[in-house]
């Protein structure tokens, strides 16, 4: 709360003529730093530099997603020129729920059409548009990859966040994929950080050989914690974000968040330049990246096949 107050004051120091971006962030500045940097790059591509010709009014939920609607309402009340809702479907939905007439630029992993955020990708309609990173769509691919690593496994554990709006559709797709891949699924839930340990403990106890995380921003932003737990319990795991293998986890498969946040920045800039959101189709991230950590594989005792390594966009040794 104190953090939010200090960050927001930045906006009020700016010249009144400068347009203001309301930046609704589900996490804290520390966790969101790399995404914010990508966003700033995109803004700059569109000709806007924060502090010079645009001001950014931040609202930080610091991981408490339940506060997002209140923070979104706060931004709307401040009459910002454009609302940027990055970091997942909950943020976009919270911003949209305010019913503001201001343009909303989202960045999420889910399918914005299915979530009823937009009417269609090519013509979003209304005052909202943005970028989808495809992370949600590729949940079955994570299951497939885990299956490649553990070809003999018959039972794999899935972790879903029950509070996530995309959880049901992801689970549905995962079940279908599991049938194709002929594995059994063990569905686990976690929506708070302190529930993570019990998830790993349950997997270790229940004998499922691998752990697949559904796409969820809450998980994504806590990759370091998840990596540490995976190593602690010696469980091979896969998540959506590269942060996970970088922090010592086994591997990740998901949309390139640098690309998605940068494009959100470009769109925010174009909106500030006067373009209408209805003219800006929803962009899908073109790059879905596979990152593997050979060191973790060695520690866990599950070496990657040549095919997996060949297909990896980044290999951490």
């Amino acid at each position, binding site marked *: 709360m104190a953090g939010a107050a200090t960050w927001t004051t930045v906006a009020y120091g700016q010249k009144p003529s400068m347009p203001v971006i309301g930046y609704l962030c589900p996490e804290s500045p520390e966790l969101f730093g790399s995404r914010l940097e990508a966003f700033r790059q995109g803004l700059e591509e569109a000709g806007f530099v924060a502090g010079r010709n645009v001001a950014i009014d931040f609202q930080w939920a610091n991981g408490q997603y339940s506060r997002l609607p209140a923070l979104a309402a706060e931004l709307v009340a401040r009459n910002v020129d454009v609302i940027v809702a990055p970091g997942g479907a909950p943020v976009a939905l919270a911003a949209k729920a305010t019913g503001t007439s201001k343009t909303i630029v989202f960045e999420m992993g889910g399918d914005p*059409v299915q979530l009823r955020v937009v009417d*269609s*990708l*090519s*013509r979003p309609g209304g005052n909202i548009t943005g970028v989808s990173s*495809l992370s949600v*769509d*590729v949940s*079955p*691919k994570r299951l*497939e990859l885990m299956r490649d690593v553990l070809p003999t496994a018959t039972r794999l554990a899935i972790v879903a966040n029950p509070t996530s709006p995309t959880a049901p559709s992801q689970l549905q797709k995962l079940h279908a*994929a599991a049938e*194709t*891949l002929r594995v059994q699924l063990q569905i686990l839930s976690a929506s708070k950080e302190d529930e993570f340990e019990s998830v790993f403990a349950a997997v270790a106890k229940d004998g499922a050989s691998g752990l697949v995380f559904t796409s969820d921003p809450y998980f994504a932003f806590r990759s370091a914690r998840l990596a540490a737990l995976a190593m602690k319990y010696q469980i091979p795991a896969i998540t959506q974000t590269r942060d996970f293998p970088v922090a010592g986890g086994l591997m990740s498969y998901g949309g390139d968040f640098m690309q998605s946040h940068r494009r959100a920045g470009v769109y925010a800039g*174009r909106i500030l330049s006067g373009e209408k959101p209805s*003219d*800006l*189709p*929803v*962009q*899908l991230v*073109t*790059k*879905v990246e596979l990152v593997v950590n050979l060191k973790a594989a060695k520690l866990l005792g599950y070496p990657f096949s*040549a*095919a*997996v390594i*060949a*297909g*990896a*966009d980044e290999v951490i040794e």
Partner: protein
Amino acid sequence: MIPQDRFRGLFHKYLLALFVAVAIPLAFNGVIESWFGYRDQRARLDQWLSLQSASAAAEIHDFIHGITSQLGWLVQLPWTDEFDERRRTDALRLLRQAPAIASLTLLDGNGLERLYISRIGLNRIESRTDRSADPALVGARAAQIWFSDVSYNRGSEPYLTVAITGNRPAVGAVVAEVNLKLIWDVISAIKVGRTGFAFVLDRSGRLIAHPDISLVLRGAEEATSRPFRAVRDAIGSKAGFATTRDAQGHYVAASAAPVHGPDWTVVVVQPLSEAYAPIYSALWRTAMLLAISTMLAGILAYALAHRMTEPIKLLEEGTERIGAGSFDHRISIDTGDEFQRLANSFNRMASELALAQQHQERIAKLKRFLAPQVADLVDRAGDDSVLDGRRTEVVVVFCDLRGFTAFSAGAAPEEVMSVLSEYYESLGRVIAKFEATLINFSGDGLMVLVNAPVPVEEPALRAIDLAVDMQKNVQALITGWRSRGYYVGFGIGLASGPATVGRIGYKDRLDYTAIGSVVNLAARLCASAADREILIDAKVAADVKGRRPVADLGGREIKGFDEAIPVFGISFGALQPSGRGMSGTIR
């Protein structure tokens, strides 16, 4: 006012003529130069735009060719019944290498699907689905390489299906889904001039690549593609670029080039304002030069016209002043040409006019008392020293009318003046005829001098003839007057002797006169002469004796003289005709 107008007219004519002589060739030259410059620039633009479109098409072709050449690696080994794990590895490697490829399908020689690799969906190994009727495979088998029409993933992202077969049926085929959104990296890097860009249309004219990705992501939307298709259609199949309007209605120069294989068209457009900037700047430069040259021509024409009309103006003013009588005015023109010569002529003429005027004035002065021919003679002599005072022998003639005072008192003034004017006119003719000098006249009396200022031969004889002529003329008049009832007579007195002659008076009122007793004597003789009488003194009588019939009238008491003076008379009737002796008397 009128000459001034005429002058201005001439100046304007010169100004106009000179200006036109310079400005018209300049303008002509400017227009011709602009026209050729415009054509050159257009040709250059045409060449340049064609080059741009060709190079853009080459880059798009490279993008496609890069993908197809990589796909070629997958169709080199013949299929066996066993699945080779290396094929999966190769496919995954290719996927990593070619980010635009979204999925790959490997088919064996029988058209069965052996491997399917996707970035999003689940992979399939050895599904053995029969794909032999798949148009991609059919097409590729026919032409080795086959491109589908562009389709739109979820109505937004453009996708292209590419199928390639190997060099023999056993190696099978590969079918790849290519996400054309990645052409953006290529198309956005193509810059045409400063603000120009390129875009790509497929066979049916749908937009598949544009630097603004949001246009491409609108999918098959007709409204988005239509303006771009219009640009392509404006170019048509004809050679060279076309000028048309883009979606925003701005004029653009556009050129197109085909991409063989998928049968696409790459169009490069550049805002017309930018494309024509060199043309505009060249035109502008020419216009500026023309304007400056025209201005210079104007100044030059003004200066020349001024230079040409200034001497004319001076001449005009000069001749006007000379015409007005300022003969001392001189026209000062130093142009060294005909104008100067003309001015010199005028100056010469003016000085001659001045001389002529002086001459005229002098003649006029002399004519007051000299007979015109004598006056000319004096003038021709060049100096009027003959008029200077001196003592010389003269014959003085006096004459007047008898009974005139009584007549004038009784007659109307008009009648008096009429008589006098007839009288003097008659006498004037005689005086002029005999070249005598008229000294003065007052009322009906007249004094005439012979032998001064110009000496004559036989002055006495001439004076006698003069007097006789006078009498005859006046008597003829008198006869006429009598018939009207005017009763007057006419008498003459002559005397010869030395007298002082010369000019008297002041400034413009100078008269010539004679002073001496001979004047008095002549006056007295005249006074005592009756009508029809000519009285002469002894000296005159002696001078003409034997040549004119002189009658001795004996001594007479003359007023102012102490003793009686011998007086002679001449009967004028005895002299027939009076002018006979004249020829011999004048030179």
